[in-house]
C-alpha cells in the first residue's frame, strides 16, 4: 500500500468546483432531440384510415375508431393510440402508406382527470383530439431512403408497340408465378379497395391466396362476387387501384393483373371441380334480356340460387359490349368464352339471335317468367350534330368495333379521324391503327380531361395515334376526289360560372381542315327502350333518358329489374357485374316470398 493510494481518492473534491451536470428540468422542461420519438401526430387530411399502423403494432396500442363518414378511398377511421401500451417503436410511422402519421419530440403530457377513466386520459386520436404538440414540427419522421413497403409495382410484360400494330393478338403477356407472388406480397391488406370496388370483391383475401399459392381458393373468392374474372382481369376500369393505400406514396398494387393471374393459372376444365356450385331447383323462371356482363352476372347468381334462367340476346354470340365493344388485343374472345362457358355450363339457357320486341314480344317474356332482369346496355351512338355526318364513310366507333368482331370486310382507308376522348374512341383509334391507317383523334377538351383510361391514352400514343386536343368539329364535306374533309376549330378553355371544370369555347374564326377516308364518331352512347311496349310495360315508369329504379335495380314493376349501363352511371363492366349480382339477390328474395 502506497501513500498515494490513500491520498488520491481525495482528488474527488476537485469536482466540487466544477459546474454540475444536472439540469433543473422542473423549472424548464428539457426538449427532446429533433428526431425524438415522442407523442404521435397525424395529418388527418392525408390519413386514409387504412389501419396499417394498427396492423403492425405488436402491443395492440392502436385502435381504428370512426371519426367521420367513409368516403371514396377513405375508411373514415382514424388511429387512436393508447399510451398505456405504446412502446414508441414507431413502426407505425415507418409503415404508414399515406405518410400521414409522424411523431413529435414532445414527451410530457399533463392532463387532469384522476376521476376519469384511464381509457380517456391515456388515449387520444392524433389529429382529432387537439394536443399541445400538434404544432411542434420537430420529432420522428420516417427517414429518407428507408422503406418497409415495396412502393414500386412489378412491371407487366407487354408486347412492344411496333409488334402490337401487326395483329389483334393480346398485347399483355401476363405475370409469371414469381412476378405475381412478388406483386401480391406488396399488399398490406387494408381493404380500402374492397370498399371502392362496385362489386365489393374481397381483394385482400384473393391476393393473400395468391401469395400463399392457393389458386383454387383464390378462384372461389373471385366467383363469390364476380363470375367474369377472366374479363375483369383484363379490362376492368379498376377503381380499386385508384384508391389503393400504396398509391399515396408509390404505385398501387396491380390488382387487375393479379386477378388475371388467377384465371390464367386455373384451367377452365377445373372450374367446375374448384367452384362445385351445387344447384337445387327452385321451380322459378327468370328472363334476362341482354347477355352483357350485367346479364351474365345475374344469370350466374340466379342459376346458382336454383332458378331456371333464360338469357335473350339479339346478337349471334353472348357477351354484349365485352365482345362487340372491346377489341381482341385487350380481351381475346377465347378468354371471354371461357367465362361465359362456365356460366352456361351451370344450365343457363341462352337464346341467341332473339331480339325482344322483334322476334319475341316483351309481353310474352313478361308472361312466361316470374321475374325479368334487363341489361341491354347503351347501344345507340350519339350523333356529333354537325353538317355532313350522314356522308358514307362517317361511322360510329361501336360499328367499327362490332364489324371487326363479326369479321366483316371493312376498309378504313389511309387516314382515319376519330372524334371523342372516351374508351370507345381509344379502342376505335387503336383498331384503325391495326388496320394500317394513320389515325388522328380530335377531342374537345385537354388531354388531361379525357375520360378514357390513362393507360389506354398512353398506349394509343405509343402506337402512334396523333391527338389533337381542344378541337371542335365544325363540318364534314365530301370532296370531289371522294375523300372526306373534316373541318374543325380550335377551342380555348374557359371557366364558366356554375360549371365545375373549364368548358371548351370555339375561338371565333378558327377553322382547320383534315382530310380523311373514314371519320369515326365516338362521343358516347345512349339507351333505347322503345322495344319495351305492350301491356307488360304499363307498370314501368320511364324517364326521358332512363328508367326509374330503386337501389336494387327494381323498377316500379316489382318483377322487372334493370342493371348494367342502363342503370349505373359508371357504365363499365364491373359495375354491370355488381348490378347483376345485387339484382339477383333481390330477385331471389322476391321469388322466395
Amino acid at each position, binding site marked *: 500500500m502506497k501513500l498515494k493510494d490513500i491520498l488520491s481518492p481525495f482528488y474527488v473534491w476537485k469536482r466540487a468546483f466544477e459546474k454540475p451536470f444536472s439540469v433543473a428540468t422542473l423549472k424548464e422542461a428539457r426538449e427532446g*432531440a429533433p428526431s425524438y420519438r415522442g407523442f404521435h401526430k397525424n395529418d388527418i387530411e392525408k390519413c386514409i384510415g387504412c389501419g396499417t399502423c394498427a396492423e403492425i403494432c405488436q402491443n395492440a396500442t392502436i385502435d381504428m375508431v370512426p371519426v367521420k363518414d367513409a368516403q371514396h378511398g377513405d375508411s373514415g377511421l382514424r388511429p387512436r393510440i393508447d399510451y398505456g401500451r405504446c412502446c414508441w417503436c414507431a413502426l407505425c410511422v415507418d409503415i404508414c402508406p399515406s405518410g400521414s402519421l409522424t411523431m413529435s419530440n414532445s414527451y410530457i403530457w399533463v392532463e387532469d382527470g384522476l376521476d376519469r377513466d384511464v381509457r380517456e386520459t391515456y388515449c387520444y386520436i392524433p389529429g382529432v383530439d387537439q394536443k399541445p404538440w400538434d404544432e411542434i414540427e420537430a420529432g420522428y419522421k420516417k427517414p429518407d431512403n428507408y422503406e418497409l413497403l415495396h412502393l414500386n409495382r412489378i412491371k407487366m410484360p407487354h408486347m412492344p408497340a411496333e409488334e402490337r400494330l401487326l395483329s389483334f393478338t393480346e398485347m399483355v403477356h401476363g405475370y409469371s408465378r414469381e412476378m405475381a407472388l412478388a406483386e401480391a406480397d406488396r399488399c398490406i391488406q387494408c381493404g380500402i379497395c374492397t370498399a371502392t370496388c362496385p362489386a365489393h370483391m374481397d381483394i385482400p383475401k384473393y391476393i393473400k391466396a395468391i401469395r400463399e399459392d392457393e389458386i383454387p381458393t383464390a378462384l372461389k373468392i373471385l366467383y363469390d362476387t364476380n363470375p367474369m374474372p377472366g374479363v375483369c382481369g383484363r379490362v376492368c376500369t379498376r377503381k380499386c387501384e385508384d384508391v389503393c393505400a400504396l398509391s399515396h406514396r408509390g404505385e398501387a398494387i396491380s390488382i387487375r393483373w393479379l386477378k388475371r393471374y388467377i384465371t390464367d393459372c386455373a384451367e377452365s376444365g377445373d372450374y367446375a371441380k374448384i367452384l362445385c356450385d351445387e344447384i337445387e331447383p327452385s321451380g322459378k323462371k327468370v328472363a334476362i334480356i341482354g347477355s352483357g356482363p350485367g346479364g351474365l352476372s345475374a344469370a350466374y347468381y340466379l342459376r346458382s340460387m336454383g332458378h331456371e334462367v333464360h338469357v335473350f340476346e339479339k346478337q349471334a354470340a353472348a357477351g354484349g359490349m365485352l365482345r362487340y365493344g372491346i377489341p381482341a388485343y385487350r380481351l381475346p374472345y377465347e378468354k371471354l368464352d371461357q367465362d361465359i362457358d362456365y356460366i352456361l355450363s351451370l344450365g343457363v339457357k341462352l337464346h341467341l339471335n332473339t331480339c325482344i320486341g322483334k322476334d319475341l314480344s316483351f309481353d310474352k317474356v313478361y308472361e312466361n317468367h316470374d321475374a325479368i332482369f334487363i341489361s341491354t346496355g347503351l347501344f345507340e351512338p350519339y350523333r356529333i350534330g354537325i353538317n355532313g355526318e350522314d356522308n358514307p364513310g362517317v361511322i360510329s366507333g361501336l360499328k367499327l368495333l362490332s364489324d371487326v368482331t363479326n369479321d366483316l370486310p371493312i376498309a378504313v382507308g389511309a387516314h382515319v379521324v376519330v372524334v371523342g376522348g372516351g374508351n370507345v374512341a381509344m379502342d376505335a383509334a387503336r383498331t384503325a391503327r391495326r388496320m394500317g391507317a394513320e389515325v388522328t383523334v380530335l377531342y374537345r377538351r385537354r388531354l388531361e380531361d379525357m375520360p378514357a383510361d390513362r393507360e389506354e391514352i398512353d398506349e394509343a400514343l405509343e402506337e402512334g395515334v396523333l391527338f389533337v386536343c381542344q378541337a371542335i368539329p365544325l363540318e364534314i364535306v365530301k370532296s370531289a376526289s371522294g375523300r372526306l374533309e373534316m373541318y374543325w376549330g380550335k377551342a380555348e378553355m374557359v371557366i364558366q360560372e356554375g360549371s365545375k371544370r373549364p368548358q371548351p369555347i370555339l375561338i371565333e374564326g378558327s377553322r382547320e381542315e383534315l382530310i380523311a377516308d373514314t371519320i369515326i364518331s365516338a362521343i358516347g352512347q345512349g339507351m333505347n327502350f322503345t322495344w319495351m311496349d305492350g301491356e307488360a310495360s304499363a307498370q314501368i315508369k320511364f324517364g326521358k333518358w332512363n328508367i326509374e329504379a330503386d337501389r336494387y335495380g327494381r323498377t316500379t314493376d316489382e318483377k322487372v329489374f334493370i342493371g348494367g349501363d342502363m342503370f349505373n352511371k359508371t357504365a363499365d363492366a364491373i359495375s354491370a357485374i355488381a348490378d347483376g349480382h345485387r339484382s339477383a339477390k333481390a330477385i331471389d328474395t322476391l321469388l322466395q316470398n
Partner: protein
Amino acid sequence: MQSLYPPVKNGKATYDLESQKYLKLWQGPQHPGVTGNMSLELDICGDQVINCNTHVGYLHRGFEKLMERRRYINSFPLVCRICVPEPDTNEYLFAAAMEELLGIDIPERAKWLRTLNLELSRLASYLMWMGGQAGAFGMGTIAQWCLAHRDFVLDLFEEWTGARIYHMYMIPGGVRGELPEGWTGRAEKVISAAEKLLGEIEQVFINNAIFKLRAQGLGIIEPEMIDPYAVVGPNARGSGIKRDLRKDTPYLIYDQLSFDIITENSKDAYGRFLVRWRETQQAIDLIRQIIKDMPTGGAFHLTLPNVLHLKVPKGQTYVKAESTRGEYGYFMVSDGSAFPRKVTVRGPSFSHAMALLEYLAVGVNIADVAGLMVSLHTYPPEIER
C-alpha cells in the same frame, strides 16, 4: 480467506442451522446491492458467507414465448428489452439471425452503423457498470460521475436513433436511419469527456486503497473454472484468457478495425475492473476509428419482403456477438411460417450470476457480496428471457 467455522467441502458447507451459530440472510430481491431483480439466499456465520443460493423469477416477462406468437417484425421492438443497459446486442443478434435465415446480406453502410451503435452502447454499458462497481464498494461519487457521462452517451443515441434506452435501430435488413448532421462532432465531445473521466477514475478509484484492499483477492476465477462454469467475456479475460468474439469470430466490420484483446492476470474483482476500465478506453478508440474510416453515403437499409406477412424459410441458426458481459447468442428456429418457432437467448449472466456466483460467494464477507456480484457484471433479465 480462511473460515473459523465448519469447512466447506465441494462448495457445500457442513453445518447445522439449528445450532444458533448460523443465520439465513436474504440479499434481494429489493436490495441496492444486487444487480437487478434477483435475490441471494445467504447462509452466514458471523459475517462470512458459508453458502449461497441464487433465486431468479422476479423479472420473468417471457420474451422467448412472446416471440413465438409474434411476427418477426413485431419481435424486433421486443428483444431490446431483454437487457436494459445494453439493448443493442439483442437488436443486432435478432436481426442477424433473421438475415441469416433469409439468406440476405445487408448494405456495407449498415454494417458500419451497426458496429458504431454496438460500440457506443458498450461505452454506455461500461460506464454504468463502473459506477455500479464503485457504488457497491461504497464510493457513490464515481456512480454519480459515471451515470452523468452515460447520460451524455444516451443523448447521442437520442439524437441518432430517436430514443435514449431502447433504440430499436437495428431493424432486420439494415438500420433505420443515417447519422444526423454534425453528430460526429458532438460524439467526439462526449467521448473525450468520457476519456477524461476514465483518467479521474484511475486516480480516485483504481488507486484507491480501500478498493484495493477489498477487491484484490475477491472472487478469484481460476483458469480451470473457465470452461466448466461457462465463463466468458471480461470475467474470463480478467483471468488471463484471451477470448473475445470480436477477434475470434469477427462479425460486422470488426475485422477491419485494429484493436487487441485486453487481459489481466490477477483473476480477482480488481483485475476484472481493470479489464473493463481498459475496454471502455478501447470502445472509445473503436468509436473514433469507425467514425474516421466509415464509408460515407450509400444505402443503409434493404427492404425485406413485406414484413406484415414475411415468412422465413425453414431452418435454424445460432449467431453470437461480444457484449460487455461476454458471449451473447441467439438461437433461432424457423418452421417456415410467419412466426419464429423458437428463439432462445443465451445471456452470459445466466452462468455468471447463478452457478459461478454461488461458488464464488462462499467464504466472502457479507459486505463484499454486493461488490462480488457486480464484479461479475450480471443482468438478471438475461437470465429470465
